[in-house]
């Protein structure tokens, strides 16, 4: 089916083909009748051998031969000679078949089967493999078989490593050999506990691969291996808490479940959350598991530690996540007094919080903050419409308090997790790749340099607050977009992440994006603070560890098609995603975790425009990905007459939210039928597309 030229059939070819076909058909029906009648005579076996020589993919014939072997071996149990000859015959048939098609799954498996019965000499198999692998060094069947034989032989990892080295020496563009090398090396690195040994090994590999990269800087094989080495080098050893909400030392004033108009979020320390759901968010530098009430101790007057349940924020049901949240119930706090309560969160004093490769949290971490509940006033009066218009926002002059883990004391107990060897190695590679790029315009070399530079920044500043190389990396991605336009969206996404990192890492740049919202008439003081990242050409959101404090976020006029990671922003109250490239409701899945979200603008996106939904399998509650959480039909929250069958995606997102304001105009999906569906599943909605619904 591959590589045959398209030619108009000549009559004589057709005749020849028909004759050949007739012969093969006769062979096949002869074979099938032997098979069905369980006839295992020499003649019958010959028929199957002939058939397999022509068509090694004829899998039933391989099965038949296994049956025949079992049958005939039983018959000649007394004679080891004849048993040997039975198996030798099988090896021969396989060899013939492989000569015809050595990508035949059936043939390779048959050989494995014979071998697993203890026949053929393993040395013979290795010699055969050498021959096959020389003919096609990328044949993955042969590589798989080689791993199988090497394991049976008990060949040392070092010997096999040498074999990959030889093949790469012959032709460095052998991705299969590089792959096998990564597998073997992982085994070695896992076994050898000694750190210096691992470091030496990895350093040597860098030298080895660099040679290949110089030979042809545009060949991908070595670069992927290089990327893997970088991963081995820069893997932070142990998990580290890099951000949290609240931040240590903060003084917070909480007002419960009231409308925006009455209690403006007018400073960084005033928050509006449901009193039974005061979130504590822990953000680690890598995926961890084991965050629970025995590994995290909460001390305060109003909540028992055991009553706090920690939840991982991963898009799907999983025990591990980078972000964890625990909710404190404040409803027991005396609402008539505004006396502050101290909350202490201690984690890592007991083992249990660990990374996917079993490493424990690097240092214990204590964070304490004070929270006071704003006394309840008379029932809130009216809801006001929030208008995302330019003239409603005023520059924020308030100095920004420390919102993330940089300058603030995160406890002197912090030990750097990065070793000198790691930073040194990355620095060395940076200069090596720079040299290479001086003589070649390799696109994948530029990608590698960008990654090395970012890795260097992360290592020198674990809380990602210093972005020394950001400018250079941004430049590299801009160059790449021109150099390799086919993948420009990839570079744009990567660029967006770096840009956000840079924007949000320092108080100075951050302040430029903080605004007061002045659209609330009843507000006596300043309006709420809005982080405005609108119109920044951002195609991908990131740096969420820097955004945990945000309650009002404007991301409009960007190029976002995903909001993956946004679930960490537990305080989010108002979100503007207008004029982006969101393609479906399933892309809004992260919103389901944002219980404080009241105002949402998703107008002028592409929802309903596309026939292919690219987030269909990434949402946590889809009936298509059977993960048990789904109750989408006839549950208590969905009104019976709502058309859930046709709008399950929207229903999934919205039924877990209590939106008061929604803008959805300008999406293909937003017709009248859909609007009436929305009104059914959003009973608290006050404004739809700017229209007051006058519901109360």
């Amino acid at each position: 089916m591959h590589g045959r030229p398209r030619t108009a059939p000549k009559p004589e070819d057709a005749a020849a083909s028909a004759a050949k076909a007739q012969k093969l058909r006769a062979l096949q029906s002869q074979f099938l009748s032997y098979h069905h009648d369980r006839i295992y005579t020499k003649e019958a076996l010959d028929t199957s051998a002939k058939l397999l020589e022509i068509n090694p993919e004829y899998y039933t014939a391989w099965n038949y031969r296994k049956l025949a072997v079992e049958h005939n071996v039983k018959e000649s149990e007394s004679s080891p000679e004849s048993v040997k000859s039975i198996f030798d015959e099988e090896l021969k048939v396989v060899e013939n078949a492989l000569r015809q098609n050595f990508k035949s799954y059936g043939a390779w498996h048959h050989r494995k089967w014979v071998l697993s019965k203890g026949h053929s000499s393993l040395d013979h198999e290795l010699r055969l493999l050498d021959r096959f692998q020389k003919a096609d060094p990328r044949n993955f069947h042969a590589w798989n078989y080689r791993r199988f034989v090497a394991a049976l032989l008990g060949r040392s990892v070092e010997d096999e490593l040498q074999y990959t080295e030889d093949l790469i020496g012959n032709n460095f563009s052998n991705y299969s050999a590089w792959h096998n090398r990564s597998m073997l090396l992982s085994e070695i690195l896992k076994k050898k506990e000694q750190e210096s040994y691992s470091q030496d090994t990895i350093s040597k590999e860098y030298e080895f691969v660099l040679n290949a990269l110089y030979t042809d800087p545009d060949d991908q094989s070595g670069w992927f291996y290089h990327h893997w080495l970088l991963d081995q080098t820069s893997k932070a050893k142990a998990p580290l808490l890099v951000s949290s909400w609240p931040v240590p030392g903060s003084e917070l004033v909480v007002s419960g479940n009231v409308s925006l108009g009455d209690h403006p979020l007018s400073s960084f320390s005033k928050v509006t959350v449901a009193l039974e759901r005061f979130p504590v968010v822990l953000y680690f530098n890598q995926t961890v598991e084991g965050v629970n009430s025995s590994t995290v101790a909460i001390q305060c007057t109003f909540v028992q530690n055991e009553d706090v349940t920690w939840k991982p924020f991963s898009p799907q049901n999983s025990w591990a996540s980078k972000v964890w949240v625990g909710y404190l119930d404040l409803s027991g706090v005396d609402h008539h007094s505004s006396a502050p309560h101290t909350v202490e969160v201690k984690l890592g004093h007991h083992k249990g919080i660990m990374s996917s490769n079993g490493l424990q949290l690097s240092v214990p971490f204590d964070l304490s903050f004070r929270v006071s509940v704003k006394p309840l006033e008379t029932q809130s009066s009216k809801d006001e419409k929030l208008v995302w218009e330019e003239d409603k926002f005023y520059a924020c002059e308030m100095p920004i308090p420390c919102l993330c883990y940089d300058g603030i004391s995160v406890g002197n107990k912090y030990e750097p997790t990065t070793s000198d060897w790691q930073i040194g190695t990355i620095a060395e590679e940076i200069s090596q790749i720079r040299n290479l790029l001086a003589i070649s315009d390799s696109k994948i070399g530029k990608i590698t340099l960008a990654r090395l530079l970012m890795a260097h920044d992360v290592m020198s500043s674990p809380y990602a607050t210093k972005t020394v190389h950001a400018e250079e990396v941004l430049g590299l991605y801009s160059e790449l977009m021109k150099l390799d336009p086919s993948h420009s969206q990839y570079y744009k996404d990567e660029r967006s992440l770096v840009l956000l990192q840079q924007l949000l890492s320092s108080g100075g740049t951050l302040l430029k994006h903080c605004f007061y919202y002045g659209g609330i008439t009843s507000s006596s003081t300043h309006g709420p603070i809005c982080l405005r990242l609108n119109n920044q050409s951002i195609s991908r959101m990131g740096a969420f560890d820097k955004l945990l404090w945000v309650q009002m976020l404007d991301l409009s006029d960007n190029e976002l098609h995903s909001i993956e990671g946004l679930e960490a922003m537990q305080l989010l109250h108002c979100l503007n995603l207008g004029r982006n490239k969101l393609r479906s409701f399933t892309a809004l899945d992260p919103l389901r975790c944002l219980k404080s979200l009241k105002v949402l603008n998703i107008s002028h996106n592409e929802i309903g425009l596309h026939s292919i939904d690219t987030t269909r399998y990434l949402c946590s509650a889809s009936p298509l990905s059977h993960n048990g959480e789904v109750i989408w039909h006839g549950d208590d929250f969905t009104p019976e007459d709502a058309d859930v069958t046709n709008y399950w995606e929207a229903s999934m997102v919205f039924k877990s939210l209590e939106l008061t304001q929604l803008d959805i105009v300008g999406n293909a999906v937003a017709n009248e039928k859909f609007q009436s569906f929305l009104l059914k599943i959003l009973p608290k909605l006050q404004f739809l597309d700017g229209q007051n619904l006058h519901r109360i």
Partner: protein
Amino acid sequence: MGELAGDKHVKYILCVEKKKDSFESVVMEHLRLNGAYWGLTTLDLLGKLDTVDSNEVVSWILQCQHESGGFGGNIGHDPHLLYTLSAVQVLALFDKLDVLDLNKVTDYIRSLQNEDGSFSGDVWGEVDTRFSYCAICCLAILKRLDLINVEKAVRYIVSCKTLDGGFGCTPGAESHAGQIFCCVGALAITGSLHHVDKDLLGWWLCERQVKSGGLNGRPEKLADVCYSWWVLSSLIMIDRVHWIDKEKLIKFILDCQDTENGGISDRPDDAVDVFHTYFGVAGLSLLEYPGVKAIDPAYALPVDVVNRIFFGRC
């Protein structure tokens, strides 16, 4: 750029079905059930499934079923998961899943799960993550996923992860796009995509696009229309499909059409076959090419068929 010669392709598929005497079709006889799935799905994507007599197909499919419950690639051939999946998929296309003796099929599939969570393709014990996909996809369509140990099945697939974020057929094996589709598909269907490093795999997959616009299956290999399916569907499941140039890929696929006699080949000017015709059309479907019905990237069935099964949406 040329256009999709949909009618020609329909004619080609219907014609291949009748041309049983050519050498090519005799060689393919043992996997006729796969062929039926490729051909019929293509017809459905092109809106022409009704040109086929469904009763005839269904009764033939049932003749491919064995005592064990599994399906062979054709009448008289041994049962295997590869063909069992095709049988279930074709019945799903025709909305005829109710002809199946559910317990019989699902018992067969269940019996092939091994202690480590992996699946054998048949009683002869070849293990491959392709078979994990076949089993999981089949059982999901039949709504009997609870019959197997999904957790172990997922763990086995994850153990086949490679340096590039992709997956191989067994632990230690090299990844390639076809295998990645199987593993990512199985993880998607079991709600386990959090095990995939989406950025790493997405980058590797988008680097499969070569200068011609076509996609290859492994680094430094030739582009081939069938990878339009394997690579694209995987990229879609992990939401990274925007990282490739869709227009160039559409052009590559269209350039592989035989605009005279219908059918699509692996590369421009090669001989066409049903396999590549299906993957070309399915690729165009994933690229939202006008006039082609949408296909689901995980179940490899038209979206309306999948929605009918899981949402009762008509």
